[in-house]
């Protein structure tokens, strides 16, 4: 069941597998973990309804084909889906693109303009967007950006102008507990523990172990200045709708921590 973040912006959530055992959380007992709970790194997709037109950003994984199709039906009904944006062709992000396009032949596929292998991902026929390109949906306008911290070269980030929402895809993901599904970060109990971000980036964005800390953190400062978002909507975490730039600042601690301790582990 999707959750509305702001009027017209909907959060569609897939929990993925429980990571508790494979990450030895019960034994390691990091500060954010509560004994007996399951822990997740979710997959998130977002639907933007601008009144006139609708846009879906990412597709969830192939394990949730029925769920994403049902969510689209629930949110757009007979109006149809006007745009499907694939942030990057990683299977858990784009794995339902064909199923969605089959179900919604009215939909325009939107793909990153970056990278040079589009045919290998069946993204050659889509509309290709790069920095500054926009799609007006009515009372919502989305804008596309070169992805700063990414895995696949065929990648793009997105913002929604009216609400000041940044969609940074894989960056700023983090773990959460079973009872925190579809919960906004400001609704969590207690202070947000930066080690949740470390746990994710130290495994999934494995290259953090190799970065130049000063350069990477200067880039984070540049991102804060460029976007200054009100809301951060990551693909692998919970939605941050208050004090968003403070959470972006926390990412500098993530860089320093992984530099000191190395890769936390594999996704496992």
């Amino acid at each position, binding site marked *: 069941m999707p959750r509305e973040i702001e009027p017209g912006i909907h959060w569609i959530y897939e929990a993925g597998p429980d990571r508790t055992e494979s990450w030895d959380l019960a034994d390691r007992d990091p500060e954010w973990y509560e004994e007996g709970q399951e822990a997740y790194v979710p997959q998130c997709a977002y639907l933007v309804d601008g009144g006139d037109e609708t846009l879906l950003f990412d597709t969830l994984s*192939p394990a949730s084909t029925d769920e994403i199709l049902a969510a689209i039906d629930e949110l757009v009904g007979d109006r149809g889906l006007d745009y499907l944006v694939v942030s990057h062709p990683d*299977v858990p992000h784009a*794995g339902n693109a064909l199923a969605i396009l089959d179900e919604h032949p009215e939909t325009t596929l939107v793909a990153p303009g970056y990278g040079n292998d589009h045919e290998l991902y069946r993204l050659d026929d889509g509309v290709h967007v790069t920095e500054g390109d926009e799609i007006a949906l009515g009372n919502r306008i989305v804008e596309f950006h070169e992805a700063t911290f990414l*895995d*696949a070269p065929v990648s793009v980030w997105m913002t929604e102008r009216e609400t000041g929402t940044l969609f940074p895809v894989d960056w700023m993901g983090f773990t959460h507990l079973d009872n925190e599904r579809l919960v906004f970060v400001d609704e969590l109990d207690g202070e947000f523990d930066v080690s949740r971000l470390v746990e994710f980036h130290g495994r999934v964005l*494995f*290259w953090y172990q*190799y970065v130049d800390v000063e*350069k990477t953190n*200067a880039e984070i400062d540049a991102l804060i200045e460029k976007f200054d978002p009100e809301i951060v909507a990551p693909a692998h975490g919970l939605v941050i709708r208050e004090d968003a730039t403070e959470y972006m600042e926390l990412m500098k601690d993530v860089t320093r921590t992984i530099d000191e301790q190395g890769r936390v582990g594999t996704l496992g």
Partner: protein
Amino acid sequence: MTVQVTPSVEWINQCYEHEGDHEHVSLYLLRAPEGTVLVDSGSFYHREEITAAVDEATDGDGPDAIVLSHSDYPHAANVSPLGGDTEDVELVASSASPAQQGLPDARKCDIGGSLTIEGREFSFIDPPLADRSHTTWIYDHGDGVLFTADGFGNYHDPGRCDYLSDDFPESTPTDRIYEYHRDNLVWLRYVAPEKVDRTLDDIFASYDVNAVAPIHGNPIVGDDLDTYRERLRESIERIASEHSVA
């Protein structure tokens, strides 16, 4: 047609062209003691050519096992056409969440662990050069071949698709190694190059590597391994130095 890399490892060579450059999107066939093993399954873009090449190389029998470096489409798109969704073909992948990766029937290999597949021992290595978190490099203990997935690639000019590294006049050219890694492992712009190099040193010290078999480049053999490593080091230093924060 396949290209022999080592006595029991063959290269099923496929190329993708963009703006005059060629980029390999290949896979490899191992003749293990108890059967044939494919490393990766190639792109759907080359499906017809790949299934025909595997069919010819295996006398119509198809592979006995498929080992995937990761689930990215250019590597994992032909699992079903090659029989990887049947009980006759063992499918091995590193993903901890195979259903999310579109590989619900895969047998899991742990990064950092080893498995015997068709009588051959393989080790699964945490790769310093990759584009997805669940990628594994695969080391074949039989011939000493290191399959490096997205790492150790290069672009090449038309007409050099079948080259091993020692077929180039002076081994794989530095600028082609640089261009490939610049375009495909974008995060290298943020690295401290010595950190990557240390990890590569550890891998090459731990495994007796006779050949490196990338999916997106010409295989690297013999003395060219040291040459390639040196050129890769220069390339990574260049990629990192060329990016400055705006």
